[in-house]
Every structure is written in C-alpha cells, then in structure tokens.
C-alpha cells in the first residue's frame, strides 16, 4: 500500500520536556487519517514537524515522496497546512484573499481570478465573495482557509484541529468538505481532540498520548480491541458502588450516578461471572446494560490504567462541567467530556 506520510521514530523535546517520544506514523495515500489526543499530547508538534515548520530532534520521514529533512522545499510544494486559527486577511474580501494567495503561488493574474471563483464555488462562498472576511462566521472563515489551502492542489492536506470552536452545523459542513476533498484523492492528516470527529471522518485513527501512539486502527478495530462489549452496572447506593470499584477493573465510573463500566468480551458467561463476583463482595448491581464500546471507552482504557485511583476525576462526574474544571493530568477528561457537553446525540450514535 502506498503511503503519503511514512514517519519513523520521530522525537522532539522542548527545553528538556519530551513532547514526542519516538512516533511511527504511516498514512495511506488517499485516506483520511486522524491523530486523536488530548491537549498537550503532541499532535500539533507532530504536524508542524511533518509540515517542515519544525525539525525533529531525531527520526526520519518521507512526506509526499520527498524526504522531510533532505528536501523540505519539495515537501512544502506538495502539502498545505491549515492551522487552528484561520490564516486569512480580515480586511480583504474572500475573493481578494484567494486571488492574493493565488498570485503569491505565482499564478498569472487571469489564472488567479479564475481559480478564486472556482474555489469560492466549491467551498460554498460564492455569495459572500465580495464581503470582507471580518463579517464571515467562524465556519465560513474555516471554509475560506481550506479553499486557500487548496489553491495549489496539494496532495497532502494537514488540518490541525479544523473544527475547534465551530458550532455543530458549521462542523458538519466542514466535515462534508473534508470528505469531498478526500474523494478527489487528497490525503488528509487531521488532528482532533473530539472523538466523534475522528469517528465520523477518519479511515484510520491513531491515538496519541504523552508523545506516543497508544493505539492505531480503524474505528471498528479500535472498538473491538477493547473486547466485545462494555457492561454498565448501576448500584443502589454509594457503598455498593465503592465496593464494586474495589473489586473490578472499571474503565469508567460515576460516583453521583453510582455507575461503573467494565469491558468484557460480550459473552453471557463473562457477564454472569462479573455479576457473581460483585454479589460475592456484597455489591449486587441494581441495573445492568450492555453496549458496544465507544471510542471514548477505548481511549480511557488505553490512557488511564488505574481509573479507580481518581474516582472524583471521572469525566461523567461533571456532565455539565466545562473541560477546564477538570484537574490537569487527566487527558481523557476533555476528550470524553466534550461530546457530552455539546453533542450528546452524536455521542450516542457512536456507541
């Protein structure tokens, strides 16, 4: 299988702090690849390295058939990077922005005008072409930013948290745009901290945590890596809940709801065994439900091996809480917390 990005052993540290700890990454040509991880996992650093804006301390990579270190100019010609903040000129109109960037990419004035109109149409901005970007919505700015990225027909598009700060409708719209770019054959490497964004868009997902890839695969592969099903147990009171926490390997727990979630292979025998074990420690479950694991479950299982140590820090403890309310050092809090905050229906559909 041909790969547009093939990176081996990428390491990078800033002032003694290791940010990337030997990352291997292979992005199949023509696919959408999501790099999923919490803030501070090293996603942006990895993207900036692969986009030649930063040099790795060690490691090698081939990006779009060019060696990253030996031929950064060749890489730069084949890629386009869209960062977390739309890099467009507020004071100019959408059309002027596109024409300006096209001219800077050395298209002739006539070709720049034609390309601008083409992209305005493709990205749904034709009506807004004569308006200054200052008056655009967040979603329109990202669309324009993407349009600018596509002027030179890059083979690889880096999207660094493309939907951060967008409302759900703009987010859906942007997803549609990214999908149609992939259909045209563009390879997309996107970073996101939203599980359902990775789930919706990506062919392959790599989970990055503390500078390392902790899991990689398709959504289905990742979900089944956890075992077949997640069993959710609810207890009548908090004493039962505490006893249960002490005796099973919970992937998630919620003290307020007195609920504990456990990964199993999904067989009746394993559920039976689990319930038996709980009864034996004096914590009979009041209610039981079984569901397919979500990406959040996978992430929690992979990034936190001792969930019972921090029962108060579980994301579901604060269903209405802002991610910033959670203590630092719980990478999964934001990940799991965000969809519950804003996109509960979407979150449910993952399960």
């Amino acid at each position, binding site marked *: 299988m041909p790969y547009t990005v093939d990176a081996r052993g990428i390491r990078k540290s800033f002032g003694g702090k290791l940010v990337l700890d030997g990352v291997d990454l292979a992005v199949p040509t023509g696919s959408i690849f999501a790099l999923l991880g919490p803030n501070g996992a090293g996603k942006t650093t990895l993207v900036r390295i692969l986009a030649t804006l930063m040099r790795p301390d060690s490691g090698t990579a081939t990006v779009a058939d060019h060696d990253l270190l030996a031929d950064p100019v060749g890489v730069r010609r084949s890629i386009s990077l869209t960062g977390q903040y739309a890099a467009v000129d507020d004071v*100019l109109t959408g059309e002027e922005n596109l024409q300006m960037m096209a001219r800077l990419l050395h298209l002739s004035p006539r070709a720049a005008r034609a390309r601008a109109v083409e992209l305005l149409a493709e990205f749904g901005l034709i009506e807004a072409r004569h308006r200054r970007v200052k008056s655009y919505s967040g979603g329109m700015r990202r669309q324009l930013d993407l349009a600018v990225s596509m002027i030179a027909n890059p083979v690889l598009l880096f999207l660094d948290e493309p939907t951060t700060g967008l409302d759900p409708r703009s987010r859906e719209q942007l997803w549609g745009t990214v999908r149609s770019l992939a259909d045209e054959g563009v390879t997309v490497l996107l970073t996101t901290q939203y599980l359902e964004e990775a789930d919706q868009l990506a062919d392959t997902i790599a989970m990055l945590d503390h500078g390392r890839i902790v899991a990689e695969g398709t959504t289905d592969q990742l979900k089944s890596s956890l075992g077949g099903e997640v069993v959710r147990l609810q207890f009548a009171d908090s004493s039962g809940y505490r006893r249960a926490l002490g005796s099973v390997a919970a992937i998630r727990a919620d003290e307020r709801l007195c609920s504990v979630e456990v990964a199993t292979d999904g067989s009746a025998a394993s559920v039976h065994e689990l319930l038996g074990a709980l009864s034996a420690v004096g914590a009979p479950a009041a209610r039981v439900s079984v569901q397919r694991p979500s990406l959040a479950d996978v992430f929690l299982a992979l990034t936190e091996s001792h969930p019972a140590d921090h029962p108060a820090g579980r994301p579901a403890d604060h269903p209405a809480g802002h991610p910033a309310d959670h203590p630092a050092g719980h990478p999964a809090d934001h990940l799991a917390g965000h969809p519950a905050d804003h996109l509960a229906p979407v979150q449910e559909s993952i399960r």
Partner: protein
Amino acid sequence: MTTAYAFTDTQVMITRCVRRSLRDPEAFFTALMLPVVLMLLFVYVFGGDLNTGGAYVDYVVPGLIVLCAGFGAGTTAVAVATDMSSGIVDRFRSMPIHGSSILGGHIVASLARNLLATALVIGVGIGVGWRPTASPAAWAAAAGMIVAFVLAISWFAATFGLLVRSPEAANAATFVLMFLPYLSTAFVPARTLPAVLRPIAVNQPFTPVIETMRGLWMGHTSTGAALGHEAWIAAAYCAGILVASFAAASWLFRRRTTA
C-alpha cells in the same frame, strides 16, 4: 524564487497593504485631517506671536511635514505588529515567497500614505499664504529629502512593530515619533528654547531634516548653519537609520517567523 517573483510578491503585498490602509476609514481620515488641522492650529492659533523672522507659515511647513510623517510611521508600526500577531504570516511563510516582500508591502504603503499627507501639508500651506522661494531643482531636492526621511522612519517603525509584536505596544512608536519634532526646530528656532533643550534640539535627527527642507524652500536655515552642512547631516542620519532598521527588521522578521 527568481527576481521576477520577488517583484510580483512585493506588488501583491503592496496591493494588500494599500487596500488595508484605505479600508480603515478612521485611521485614513485622521491621517488626512491631521495636516490640515495642525496647519490651521499652528498658523492661526499659536503662530501669531512667534518670532521666527517672517510669516510663521513660512517657518512651520517642514516641521508639520515631519510631524505628519511621524504619525504615518506610527500607523506602519501598528500595521506590522498586527500582521505579526495574526496567523497570516505563518501562511505566507509556508508559501514559496520572499520574506522581504511582506515588509516591503508595508513600507511602500507607508510611503504612499505619507507622501499624500505631505502633499496635503504643502497644499494647505500654500492656501494659507506659504510662499516658498525655491527653484524647481530645490523643490526636487526637497522632495528627495522627504522620500529619504519617510523611508527611514518607515523602516524604523516596521522594526519597532516587529520588536513589540502587540499592536497596542506598537502604538507607542506614534507617540515617540510625534513627540520628537517638538524637541527640534520644527516649531520654534533653537535659540528660543531653554538652554537645557538646545543641544538636544540641535543634535537630534529631525532638526537637520527640517532645516534642509527649510533651506531649500526659503533660502536660509533657522540654525544659521549652511544648507549644505544640514543636508549632509540629514542624509547621514537617514542613511544610518535606514540601514540599521533594514538590517534589524530583516533579522527580526526571520527570527519572529521561525518557530
């Protein structure tokens, strides 16, 4: 990256900066109102009682030109700082373009704004009775002095904008550049200043620039020094500021945009 592309790149950046200037109506209006208001203020309100050896308007025109240029350069510092604090410079840098063209666009737009303001000072000056005695050659020399001065303080302002990064802090450049003319021979001859201020006024860069213009237009300087003497010092100041700022700006720009 051939020279032809450098030219195109700079042209595109100039178009961008000029558009940005024109679309900031408040700043643009202020820049155009300033020369008119200051001229009327100095000639009719302050100038009546100032003994400068002749009509005050004959004395004050060069001073108002540098004052307005100082204001214009402050705008440039803010524009550069605004660019540097937005994501667009990262975008420009990821494209195969000349780094110098980005600052070049700001400098040319600054030159255009300032020359417009200068033309306005001269126009209003003539309207209120300014009668320069200069020959066409002296006019051309004065124009050369203005261009050299505006270029020098525009590069200085761009450097300042790169250095401070935040647009608010860059605004401080406006203050400094508009304050310095008051400590020069712009509005009153050095001999009328307190003894403490006299050495500052005579030796700071604005004075020789002002005196060169004054000498060229009116035939004599206010300091009593020969025109040629003032012109040499002015040229040396402009060249020095230009070279130092250009070097510093280029270095800072590369540093600021390389993460």
